């Protein structure tokens, strides 16, 4: 086993897991909404990027467009479906009553509703753009070492993953918005009475989560095959990472990205991609079974015990 291979494999899986999960984690952790359409949000980001880049725009500009398109889409979904505000606005003026209960903290209903969005998106994109579109080339070339080569772009992705985590941590702990957003999660009533516009917080959070999904799609557009069904491959990693991570979502996503990425890298190197995948999923099953509060729950327990001594 070549140590470089192992390291690059780890960086690669870590980046993939973290980038897949982070948008989902923000929305789940902050709003109690499980976005089963998360993979399809990523797909939108990838399509936006690929289509704009194919039209001749520079790659970075295309990526920014991909992120913006997904964020706008997330905004529309939040306003019409998750909060139901837009539909209720119309209904109140035509039927005289609101018809939709917001999906906040209705975990199972939010799963089913966003699942439906995912179904519509996958098939909708297939109808509009067909089963495949011209793909982008991976930029930045590759590095050579001892008979192996590794794509520089993928290495950049793992750096981006770390930056995204650090950035989000800063936003949620060191800005006014972050404090308000966390207040909204902890106790919406009190937050509202202290003058926080909780509706706006939910919408902003959902848009941030969507933009992160779009970013993931944009970043992977040049290095994966962009097809309508690509969301599924992100969805599994995303879910597993969020669930394994536990209630403290950002820290949890980092930890589970580390653990699952390491296991995936190790088994992929030893026995091939398939076993890497299976070993990762089995680890996730074990963690969910053994640690009901995920990895961050375990960390907190250990910390409490230390303090107790």
């Amino acid at each position, binding site marked *: 086993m070549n140590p470089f291979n192992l390291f690059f494999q780890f960086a690669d899986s870590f980046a993939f897991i973290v980038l897949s999960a982070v948008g989902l984690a923000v929305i789940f952790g902050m709003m109690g909404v499980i976005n089963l359409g998360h993979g399809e949000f990523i797909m939108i980001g990838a399509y936006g990027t690929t289509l704009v880049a194919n039209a001749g725009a520079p790659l970075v500009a295309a990526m920014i467009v991909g992120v913006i398109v997904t964020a706008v889409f997330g905004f529309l979904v939040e306003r019409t479906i998750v909060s139901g505000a837009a539909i209720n606005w119309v209904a109140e003026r035509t039927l005289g009553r609101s018809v939709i209960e917001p999906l906040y903290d209705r975990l199972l209903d939010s*799963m089913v509703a966003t699942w439906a969005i995912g179904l*519509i998106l996958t098939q909708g994109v297939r*109808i509009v753009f067909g089963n495949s579109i011209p793909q982008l080339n991976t930029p930045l070339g590759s590095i050579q070492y001892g008979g192996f080569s590794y794509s520089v772009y993928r290495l950049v992705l793992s750096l981006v993953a770390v930056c995204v985590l650090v950035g989000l941590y800063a936003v949620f702990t060191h800005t006014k918005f972050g404090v308000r957003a966390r207040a909204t999660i902890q106790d919406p009533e009190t937050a509202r009475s202290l003058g926080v516009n909780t509706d706006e917080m939910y919408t902003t959070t959902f848009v941030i989560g969507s933009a992160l999904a779009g970013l993931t799609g944009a970043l992977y557009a040049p290095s994966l095959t962009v097809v309508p069904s690509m969301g599924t491959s992100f969805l599994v990693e995303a879910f597993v990472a969020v669930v394994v991570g536990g209630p403290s979502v950002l820290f949890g996503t980092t930890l589970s990205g580390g653990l699952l990425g390491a296991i995936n890298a190790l088994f992929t190197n030893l026995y091939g991609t398939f076993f890497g995948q299976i070993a990762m999923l089995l680890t996730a099953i074990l963690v969910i079974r053994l640690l009901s509060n995920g990895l961050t729950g375990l960390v907190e327990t250990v910390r409490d015990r230390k303090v107790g001594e």
Partner: protein
Amino acid sequence: MGPASAFDRARAPFEGPNTAGNTRGFWIGFLAVFAVLLIYPLLFGAYAASNAAQFLFSAILGLSLCFVWGYAGILSFGQVVFYGIAGYTFGLLSLNFGSALVTTLALPAAVAIATLGAFVLGYFMFYGEVRDVYVTILTLVVTLVLYTFMGQTAGSEWTIGSVALGGFNGMPAIPNLTLGVDESALRLSGATFYWFTLLSLAVIYLGLRALVNGRFGYTMVAVREDEDRTQMLGYDVRRVKLLVFVIGGALAGFAGVLYATWGNYINPDVFGITFASIPVVWVTVGGRRSLLGAIVATVAIEWFRQQLAVTGSQYAIVVVGALLLAVVLVLPEGVVPWMRARLRNRSEHPQSTDSTGVVE
């Protein structure tokens, strides 16, 4: 004692607050629909019957999810796991031995394996205090593990006995459902398969009605409404959930055997994410707390999907998705409970045009 009171006594065990349809009128309608379905093959021929049979065994799969989700609050994406496991087991057993006797026994054996699978997974989850949405995600992960696993079994090393698992090529030439020994055995196809499926569906529906309206059903509903309180009252919540999950797994497994013998074929798509989600669509649209709703919605949606597929339309999934979305948002209780509430409103206030169609 007249026939009317005998009829009332016969329907008593199947009635209660946990199901719709507790009137004499409902049962007369039920028997009428059942009678029409019975003569359906005589009216439209074996091909139409065989086609209709797939809606009926899909309804059994729908019922299995309705039972675990609607009555015990366990949203499982894993019903298709047991469906697929049973289908594959049936194929492996019947193809390996080939005799009528083994094919006959393969049905209960496959259901038993699926049930065992449900027991192992359920024990692992519920006795490990895995709850709510984590159960959902765990079942989804298990489904995808199986999908990944079965998808890579194309090589010749994945041969069990003399039968290859076949990866995405699937397992062809699975024999028809067989009842009996040697040459005299009854091989079900076309109309006979349809009747077998219809009868099974009716028995399962009635059985589940009796179950959810009995003591155990009340316990299940209590667990759904408030696990901690049920536990405080002295019930073993873990055992209740495990039992429900196992029953659901057995029903899904039974439906899976019918599926494998119906098309004489099974492939890993039964574990795929699209197929895994379809039962959730059926049950949500029909009304997750309504067994009847699950059946009606399954048959309606599957029929509709087939119609769109026949006309070559790519919009089937879009329409199904939109329907699902509309139901979750506007009628979270599902269509059938909503209609039931509307009907009840109308019969109680014949003049009122009250439009608050919200269920209880």
